[in-house]
């Protein structure tokens, strides 16, 4: 069991190292000189050179990489070209938007997806099941940004219940702030909930075919109780795997959704960094996002241990 941890931690480190290397190399390949981007086209040659030296761009590639990784490990992020503030500050500013958004979306997807999927599996073949499956089939097919547009059309343009975009901030209370994240969270959650519902349903149906469910029924459990107590715990194992992967989709989804709703979050920051060729910001953000995904998958592995005793090796 400890071995399992150590192995996973080891691969986690390796993945992060590889991620940082790839990001660094890829952004090195990017055409254009960051110093020239900052100073504009009309900059003098010697000012350019001075800035390049100040930014460390004249040093060899491997030195710059090591310096960057060293800074990252000490928690020191770079300085944004465009905003001329430390990237850390930019992130701290935007986290209160993106974090609750991601958590709300994942929570909504889980709270809807898993129970609905299990419910449909229990009523396989009934009208309710067919309805759920049809709805989820549609949910998987709807692009989240289009769903977001439809939500805005309905709740903001037609009904005027919710703001069409922007972030109110938490000055007027937590709820007011979260209210402006409600529609974006729904838009993000819809496809994920649909995927989770379908997956849960098929995982439960698969588990229902297992011999141990028949054993449970032979003990005197009714269908529904056997499903909840025996099939569902086993079905959750594949579902949790997919939830780990979905988190990464969710993060990517925030880039689009934050743009649809003009939310000042991390996703929008990335988009702007790309548009403005703000290398330092982009580099740090991408590595941080990769780290988040890797860490979430590590947590998923821990969940496995909790769900599946076969992974806890040895007797007692």
């Amino acid at each position, binding site marked *: 069991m*400890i*071995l399992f941890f*150590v*192995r996973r931690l080891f691969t986690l480190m390796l993945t992060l190292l590889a991620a940082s290397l790839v990001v660094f190399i890829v952004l090195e390949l990017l055409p254009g000189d960051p110093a020239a981007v900052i100073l504009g086209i009309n900059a003098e040659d010697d000012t350019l050179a001075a800035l390049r030296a100040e930014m460390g761009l004249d040093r060899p590639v491997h030195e710059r990489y090591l310096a960057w990784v060293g800074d990252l490990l000490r928690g020191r992020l770079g300085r944004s070209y465009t905003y001329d503030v430390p990237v850390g500050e930019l992130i701290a500013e935007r986290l209160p938007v993106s974090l609750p958004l991601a958590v709300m979306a994942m929570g909504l997807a889980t709270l809807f997806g898993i129970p609905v999927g299990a419910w449909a599996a229990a009523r396989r073949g009934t009208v309710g099941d067919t309805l759920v499956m049809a709805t989820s089939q549609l949910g998987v097919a709807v692009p989240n940004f289009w769903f977001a547009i439809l939500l805005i059309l309905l709740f903001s343009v037609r009904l005027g219940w919710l703001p069409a975009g922007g972030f109110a901030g938490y000055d007027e209370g937590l709820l007011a702030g979260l209210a402006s994240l409600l529609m974006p969270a729904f838009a993000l959650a819809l496809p994920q909930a649909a995927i989770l519902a379908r997956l849960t349903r098929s995982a439960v149906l698969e588990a229902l075919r297992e011999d141990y469910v028949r054993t449970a029924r032979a003990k005197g459990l009714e269908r529904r109780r056997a499903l909840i107590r025996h099939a569902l715990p086993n079905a959750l194992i594949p579902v949790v795997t997919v939830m780990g992967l979905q988190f990464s989709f969710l993060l990517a989804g925030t880039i689009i959704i934050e743009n649809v709703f003009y939310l000042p979050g991390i996703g929008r920051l990335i988009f702007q960094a790309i548009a403005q060729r703000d290398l330092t910001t982009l580099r740090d953000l991408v590595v941080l996002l990769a780290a988040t995904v890797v860490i979430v998958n590590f947590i998923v592995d821990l969940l496995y241990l909790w769900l599946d005793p076969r992974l806890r*090796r*040895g007797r007692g």
Partner: protein
Amino acid sequence: MSSADGPFLVELDGVVRDYRLPRRWLFSPPPVLRALDGVSLAIRPGESVGIVGESGSGKSTLARIVAGLDRPEAGRVRRGGCVQMVFQDPYGSLDPRMRVERIVGEALFGDPDGRARKRERCIDALEAVGLSADDMRKYPHAFSGGQRQRIAIARALVARPDLVIADEPVSALDVSVQAQVLNLMVDLRGRFGMAYMLISHDLAVIAHLCERVAVIHGGRIVEEGATAAVLASPRHQHTRALLDAVLPPDPQAAREKLDRARRS
């Protein structure tokens, strides 16, 4: 394709095979499962040798090593002739996506014969196991379990083997069909003169086909000898346990056996 130099078709000398299991601690050496622990065995041309043992005794590993599908960690293996195999599961051993002609013909991969000649040989092999040329165009799903096992035997036969290794060839079949396949195997040996290495957990099946038997337990051959002698007066405790475990279809005798086992 006759047997090579020396009186033996296959000769195993002190064969050891380990399987490494996942390690339990990061830097501890991985635990090793010794599947075969110094096995020596020789099979003469035309001879039928039975290997009897329970699951995990190493009998299937032994089969793979004799067939050349696996290498030993230590010890020597000498093979002097064409070796073919018949497997336990008549469903998993035939590719469901291939027609019988390709399945049987696969054993002729690398054979210098021309296409037409190979086809003839496949038909001959199928007819030898009681199927017909018409079956060449069918897929495995069109056959019953017993017929599939005949196809598998035809596949082994078509390469004109000197030795056929049969790994539990009848244990997945219905009782009434087992006898058909066993009879076929006896019949084919009479016609083609190949040697058999028959692997089974069932002493009765081995007794029917093999003049010599080796009892394998925990990766070692614990007893070996003429089948009749071993059955009549088993020396090793494990052989006795295997014999005691067989329940005859006679209520009186079977009950006595069960009672004896309960008391001990």
